[in-house]
Structure formats: structure tokens, C-alpha cells
């Protein structure tokens, strides 16, 4: 059996890179938010420190095996999602397993974590957690539909379901799908707002209403693992959107620039908007994003 050591290297380093980038983005977000609110703000390593602190917590409390495994489900989904996305275009090391899955697969593996997390939160027996899960799943139905509309438009336009093929299509700046199919991009990016869970779509973890919702009984190592997963998942989603719409990246600097710009869209939206109620956000997703998605498909078909 011949093992490709380069891909093994990729398998090991990709989650670590994703974690570091995601965690730094999280810290930067807090700093940017602070600057906009005319504050000084925490250092950009703040999220990393938080995670280290949570790992160093001595005791942890669990309500049963599903709560114990809930964060593991979440991080498994994050890392697996990352493995099936080509992080760097045409790179041997960072394409990982992306040849073995396609966009439909990614759609499904992305909800694997939410489902596991929901089960974990369910076992805590905290009613706030259950309310949060109920809101989260409802909202998920909201944003998944415009997202799928935009993906279907793109898949139909380029006759492929593979992310690698989509990357191959976008060779030059003008070939980026954001320019080739702008309507799909609008639908996708509006769904992306919901996917990232920043305000106005943060009713799931609303701390003032339902005591941070699903993770309300998670502390110590469990919360640390969840935050790690969140960081990795943020990065994975950003790379996915960069690969789909912004032509991917052939080196890390381009990747960082593109993902950061993409990341700023939900962050800056979140700072200036108050929170939507669940049915409001569902109705939001089923209004304009849906129209744009349908238009995108119609443009491709006609």
C-alpha cells in the first residue's frame, strides 16, 4: 500500500490551519465590533485565550452520553467538511479528500454537526437548550432553501456538481462565478448570513433571552471543543464560498484576503442590525433570497 505522505500532511495540517485562522477571525471580529462601537476592544488573540482557558478548566459536567458526544459530532462535521473542500487550488497538500465528494455531499455533511449538537443539547434537559434547538432547526430550513437554489443554478450552469470542476471553470478574474452568475451569488450570500449565525439571525443563541440556548449546559472541555469546532467550521464555510463564488485561491495570502473580505459581510451586517424573531428570519429567507435564487435558475435555464 502506497501512502501519499503529502496528503497525510494536508490531512493533519488543514484542521490546525483552519483552527488558527478561524480563531483569529473570531478575535478580529470582536475587535472590529469594538472599534465600530468606539471601544478599544480585546486583543485579536482573545478567542484563542478563551479556548485555552476552557480547555484548562478542571471539572466538567455532563448529563449523559449524548451530551458527552454532542461536541464531538459537531467537530467531526466541521473537520470532515473541511476535508472535502479544496482549500488551495491545484495544491497536492491542501486538496485533501475533495475529489471524493461533491456539493450535495457537502450540504449534507454540514448538517451532521448541527444534528449531533442538537442531540447533545437535547439531553441536557435544559428547556432553554430545547428552545434554542427548535429555533435553530427552523431557521436552518429557512436559509438552506435559498442556498440550494443558488447551488442548483450554478450546478446547472456549469454542468457539474463537483467543487473541483467549479474551480477549474474559474480560471481568470472575469470567470469568477460571482460575475458569471451574480443572482446566484446574491441568493447564496444572503443564505450565508443565516448560516454564520451572526445578528440579525442569532436568535438561536440569544444570551439575554434563552441563556445562550443549545450550549447553555456545556462548559469546560465541552464548550472548548464546541468553540474549536465553530472556528474550524467558520473557516470551512468561508473557503467553500470562496471556492464556489470567488474562484478559490492558489496561495494562502489570496485565500486569507478573499475569506476575510467574505467574512466581513456577515460581521458588518451583524453589528448594525438587531435580532430577528424566528418566523421573521424564516420569512426573510423565503422572500428576497428565494426570488433571487429562482431568478438565477431561470436565467440559466432560459
Amino acid at each position: 500500500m502506497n501512502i501519499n505522505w503529502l496528503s497525510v500532511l494536508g490531512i493533519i495540517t488543514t484542521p490546525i490551519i483552519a483552527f488558527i485562522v478561524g480563531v483569529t477571525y473570531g478575535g478580529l471580529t470582536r475587535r472590529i465590533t469594538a472599534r465600530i462601537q468606539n471601544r478599544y476592544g480585546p486583543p485579536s488573540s482573545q478567542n484563542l485565550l478563551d479556548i485555552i482557558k476552557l480547555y484548562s478548566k478542571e471539572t466538567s459536567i455532563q448529563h449523559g452520553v449524548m451530551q458527552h458526544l454532542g461536541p464531538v459530532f459537531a467537530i467531526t462535521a466541521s473537520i470532515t467538511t473541511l476535508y472535502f473542500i479544496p482549500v488551495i487550488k491545484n495544491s497536492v497538500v491542501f486538496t485533501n479528500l475533495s475529489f471524493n465528494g461533491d456539493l450535495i455531499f457537502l450540504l449534507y455533511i454540514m448538517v451532521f454537526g448541527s444534528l449531533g449538537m442538537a442531540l447533545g443539547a437535547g439531553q441536557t434537559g435544559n428547556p432553554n437548550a430545547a428552545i434554542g434547538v427548535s429555533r435553530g432547526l427552523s431557521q436552518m430550513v429557512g436559509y438552506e432553501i435559498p442556498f440550494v437554489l443558488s447551488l442548483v443554478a450554478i450546478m446547472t450552469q456549469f454542468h457539474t456538481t463537483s467543487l473541483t470542476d467549479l474551480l477549474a471553470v474559474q480560471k481568470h478574474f472575469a470567470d469568477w462565478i460571482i460575475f458569471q452568475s451574480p443572482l446566484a451569488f446574491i441568493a447564496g450570500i444572503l443564505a450565508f448570513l443565516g448560516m454564520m449565525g451572526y445578528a440579525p439571525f442569532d436568535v438561536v443563541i440569544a444570551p439575554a433571552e434563552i441563556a445562550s440556548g443549545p450550549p447553555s449546559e456545556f462548559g469546560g472541555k465541552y464548550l472548548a471543543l464546541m468553540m474549536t469546532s465553530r472556528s474550524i467550521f467558520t473557516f470551512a464555510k468561508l473557503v467553500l464560498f470562496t471556492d464556489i463564488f470567488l474562484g478559490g485561491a492558489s496561495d494562502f495570502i489570496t485565500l486569507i484576503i478573499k475569506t476575510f473580505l467574505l467574512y466581513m459581510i456577515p460581521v458588518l451586517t451583524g453589528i448594525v442590525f438587531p435580532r430577528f424573531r424566528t418566523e421573521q428570519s424564516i420569512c426573510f429567507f423565503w422572500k428576497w433570497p428565494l426570488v433571487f435564487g429562482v431568478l438565477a435558475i431561470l436565467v440559466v435555464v432560459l
Partner: protein
Amino acid sequence: MISIPYILLIAFAGALLSFVIHHIAPKLRTPVALLTTVLLLYFVWALPANSLINIKIGDFILTWGTTAYGQLFGMLVAVLGFFTVLYSTDFMASKERLGYFYMNFLFVIGGMLGIVYSQDFISLFFFWEIMTWSSFMLVIYCCKDAQSIGLKYFVFSAIGAYSILIGIVLLYSSMGTLQFKNIFGHINEISTGIKISVIILMIIGFGVKSALMPLHVWAPDAYAVSPSPFTALFSGALSKMGIFGIGLVLFKLAAHTGFYSYVQYTLAWIGGITALLATFYAIAQTDAKKLLAYSSIGQLGYIIVGLAIGTPLSIAAALFLAILHAIFKSMLFMATGAVYMRTGTTNMTEVSGLIRKMPISFVTALFGIITVAGVPPLGGFAAKWMLYESLIQSGHYFLVIVIFAASTAAFLYLFRYIFSLFLGQEEKEWENVKEVPWTMQIPMILMTIFVLVIGVFPGLLLDPISSAMQYLNVKPFDYQMSVLFNNWGGKVDMQIVVRSIAAVFILLGIFITIKGYRNTRYVTTKDIHTSGEIPTENENLTYAVDFYKPFERSIAPLLKASIDKVYTLTGDIFEQAFDYLRYVYTGNGQTYAMYVVLFLAILLLFSELIFGIIL
């Protein structure tokens, strides 16, 4: 020795024997039933591939034979039959009228086996009726409340059966034969009008059993009220007979006609809307069995979409989903039955926190919902993947959105199902609940392993499916033991997926368990963050009522329109119409005489207009 008549003989003889023996030696009744299903399982499995038998009765020739397509469903029926009978040994132990129960149960199994091995429409209809009648008997088995529900089921079954019968008669009158081999492929010899009516009638007939949307109203109640082992078979295998029939009609009759694409398109959209609406209804349910019933309707909608699209990949997806649905829905109904057996209710607002008491049932339900949701790495994913790929690649852009919306919304009711029954607050009321006996655990465990294995090696199931598709004259499609391909060159390698998921999961699972193992402590579900307040014993901390209120609010207009109301309205209109008719037929001779005179007068007055001559 091993041939189709023996299989049917075993099934029906076993049925009668278990009824008789119930009155002689009640202890032997269950073993007899179990033995029958074991024998059936062996016989069906060992049945040679091309056995064919002709039986002459008068002018008719009954033909029974094996096809790959029939064998696929036959195997499913036999396996599920064995599992459900095994499951019911302990589940039904404390119930009454067990002879009646087992007799009808085995009759259903025998009827279904008869259907899949029929090679002519007469025996198909004959066994169809056996299956329908005995399943009706089981629907009304439980209690008095079941009778009105049973009536609804019966009325719809009758509508279905008669439309099949009329279709058969039409076929016979125009073709003079009812043998499959003489009809299939020669459908274009008859006139278009008859073709259309035959196909529509047959689809309505089979659609009743597979709960297509306007014909589904019997299903939720009938599923909810029948005893759990039978519900598993009902939703698992019985509804698949409808799919079996629709498959035959679509690919053997309709595929050769000129209007095939219209049939496909209509059926696909009906299936899609069935899937979406049934999912939305399922979200609003509070009874676990009703929730699963609506979920079944939704899943059957997917299957019909897959069949109707008609590309090789979509048909494979549909058949794959049909088999898988039988398995996972049986798992879920069995887990629900286990809960029902121990707590006496399936109301999701009452039961909660059974995970620590019933771990096996919980794991079964967990694997079941993951499979329904279609999340990798379990078997459901392969089916969903093939369905989406085929939908997108065959250009059904908006249907794929409908299907995807249904599939995402399915997470809602699936989570609610498992959360309400097994997770959440562990309440004092259910403190003494125990795990179900091993006879009930074994089928659940075996099916759990099955979905796991199918998840890694979908090829195991795709082998018989591709030979079944050969019988249906569908082009073969690409697949490997664990790799799925689509037409655009995309693929999913399930082995790599499962390996990477398992590796990460196990690695991090070990990490989180070992890290601070000694300082990780278990606390009860009463010890939660309640703003410092100490919850008392009877304090209700379970969030189960109106679980998806916000979502229901946003889809309220869809939920309001109920097809049930339309049927009630139709019934009312007919009743009133007949009421008026009563005034016409007064029963008075003079009135009738007046009618005759009036009729003649009108005839004379307008005869020129009507006939063009003056009388």
C-alpha cells in the same frame, strides 16, 4: 420443492394453523407463526431465479413467476415479516385475540408475496384483495375507536381496488389477455383513450396504498391506530406494494406510450408536493406514531418522484429508498412501539428522557432518524444523493427545491421525535421504565447494523436493484461497491467518507473522554441552569408542547388547507344532492305518470332541435 405455490401455501397454511392452534394450544400459536415466517424467509431466499408456474382455471391461466423486480420486494417482505413477527412475540404477549392477529398478519405477508410473484393481473388483483382485507382486519384490531378509522381505510382501499379492477377489465376487453408477458410491450396495440384510462386508473389504485397526496387521508390514522409490529410492516412493506405496482405501470405500460412524459411530469410533481406537505404536517403532530405516519407519506413521495423522473439514477434512488425506507421506518415504528409498551403512550408531550432507561431503543431510533435525514455516513445518504443528482441532471430544477425543502424540514420532526421520547428531562413518572425484552431488541439491532452497512457499501443493495431495473427495461447505471457516480462525473466515495468521519469521531471522542476523566462528573437533568432556582420534583422543565410554534406560524397558510376537509365537503355535497333527489322519487304513481307526460311533451317540443325531424 422450493417454488412459488409452496411459499404461498406455507403462508396461508401457517395463518390458518396459527388461528386454529390458538384455540387448541395457545402456547404453540406464536412459535407456529414465527416458524412460518422463518420458513418463508428461507424459501424466498432460496427461490430459483426463473421459476414459472401456470395454473389453468377455466379459461384463465394464472401465472406465477419470479422476476428480479419481484424478488427484490419479495425478499423485503420476507425479511420484514420475520422481524415484525419476532418483534410481536413479546409486544403482543399480553393482548387478546392473538389467533386473529397472527392469522391476519400472516395473510398480509402471504398476500404481499403473492403480489410480487404474480405474472398476470388476475392473481395480482386476487392477492391485492387478500392483503387489503387482512390489513383492514388488523387496523380495526385494537379498539372501538379504530372502527371509523378502519372504515376510512376501507373506503379508500375499495376505491383503489375498484380502479385497479376497472383498469384490468378495460385491458382484458381490449386485449383479450391478462398475462403480463402478453400485455407488457404490446400496450400500443390498443387505443389511446383506453391506454390513458388504464394507466390513470392503475396509478390511482396503487397510489392509494402508497399514500399519494390526495389519496393519503387514510394513512396517518390507520398507521397510528394499528398495533406497532403491524405498523412497521404496514408502513414498511405494505405501502411498498403500491410502489411496486406504480413501478410496473410506469415502466411496463406507460413507458411505451406517447404520453409518457406527461405522466412522468404529473406524477413527479404530485410526489414532490406529497413529500413537502406531508413533512409540514408531520412537524405539527404531537403523537409519535402519527408523526412517523406523515413521515412515511413524505418518504413515499420521494420514492414516487424518483420513479417518475425515470432516469436510471433516479429509479435506482427510488428503489434504494423504497428498500431502505422499509427498514428505517420499521426501526422507528419498533422503537416507538417499545416506548409504547413500557409507558403506555406515544404522546410526545408526555413521555420524555428515556435514553438512560432504554438505550437500545434509543440507538435504534437515533440510527433511524439519521437514515431518514439522509445524513452521511448511514444508508439514507446514498438514496438522497442519487435522488438529488438525478433531479438536477434531468432538469427538474424546481422540483429539486421542493424535495430539498421537504428533506431539510424533515430534520425538524425527526429531532422532535427523538428529543421528546428519549432526550430531555428525565421525569419521575418514567423512573421505573425498563428496556424491552430481547426478542424485540434483536430485530432493532439487526436493522441498525443493516443501515450502517448499507451506508458504507451501498453496492450491496444496488446489485439486486440494478437487476430489478434490467427487468424494468431501464438502462444500467454506474456504481461500485461503495462509490456512487452521477452523470456529470461527480462521485462520492462512501468508504473514504465513512473512514474520515469515523477516524475524526473516534479520535476526538477518545480525547474528550480521557481529558479530565476523573473530574468529569455526571449530574442529573434536574441539575441545570435555572437561574439559581431549585426545581422541585414536580416542576415541569420539559419543553415539548408547541415545539415548532415559530415554524408553524410561518407555514400556517399551508397547514390550514387540509385535504380531509375537501373530502368531508364532497361527502356533504353528495349527501345533500341525494337529499334533493329524494324529492324527485316520491314513490307516488301519479307523480311518475306526470314525469312521463312531461318527458314526452319536452321531447315533442324540442325534437326538431334535438333530432332534426318532426315526430
